């Protein structure tokens, strides 16, 4: 299997991200499994959010640690409820790797994958889930729910 980063004096962005993804694959999953089984109980308190402690409202990243924890415990729905962006990130990562392999080794096209759409999607998911969380908290504060 040949991985071609450079073609005709032109370096491919998606090939470089694919290499980084390959290198990160094992450490990421090893860390996730460790975190899901012993790490969360040991160092989970380190990730507590200062913003939430001070103001009482969650920041856009709140729930991420618990979502990561539940993702590697296999409880995907709970993970989605805590923070959808973690599930999105994992899905985008796997989708990117699969799409790169498909395009380069099965279809054999030279079309590059546009990384920026993954970023815009992630921002959209983060902002959306934050707005929904804030809406739930405000609704609870004024006793609608």
């Amino acid at each position: 299997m040949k991985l071609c980063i450079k073609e005709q004096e032109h370096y491919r962005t998606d090939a470089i991200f694919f290499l980084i993804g390959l290198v990160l694959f094992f450490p990421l999953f090893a860390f996730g499994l460790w975190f899901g089984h012993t790490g969360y109980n040991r160092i989970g308190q380190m990730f507590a959010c200062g913003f939430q402690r001070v103001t009482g409202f969650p920041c856009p990243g709140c729930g991420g640690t618990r979502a990561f924890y539940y993702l590697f415990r296999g409880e995907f729905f709970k993970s989605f409820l805590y923070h959808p962006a973690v599930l999105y990130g994992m899905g985008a990562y796997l989708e990117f790797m699969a799409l790169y392999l498909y395009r380069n080794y099965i279809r054999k096209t030279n079309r590059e994958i546009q990384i920026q759409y993954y970023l815009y999607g992630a921002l959209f998911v983060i902002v959306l889930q934050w707005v929904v969380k804030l809406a739930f908290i405000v609704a609870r504060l004024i006793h609608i729910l």
Partner: protein
Amino acid sequence: MDAKTTGIVAYLTWIGFIIAICAGDKDGAIFHVNQALVIMLFSLLAVIPCVGWIWGIFMLVCWIMGLVAAINQEEKEVPLIGKIRILK
């Protein structure tokens, strides 16, 4: 240094940025010098706990995209913050 080298060196942390400003062909690679400055300024936000770390991942991806564009000698803007022009 020629314009290509200046553009690449500008992305390599603050030290590289200062080298690119002082010793490089700043006018030739003004696009990448400016973009490197914008990326590194926004990366400072990543020290905020929790939400800053997500932002840090975002900036890391932007940084790699900018660096690859500099190596290819393309003037390609990174998403979201690429429109900002500090150095003219």
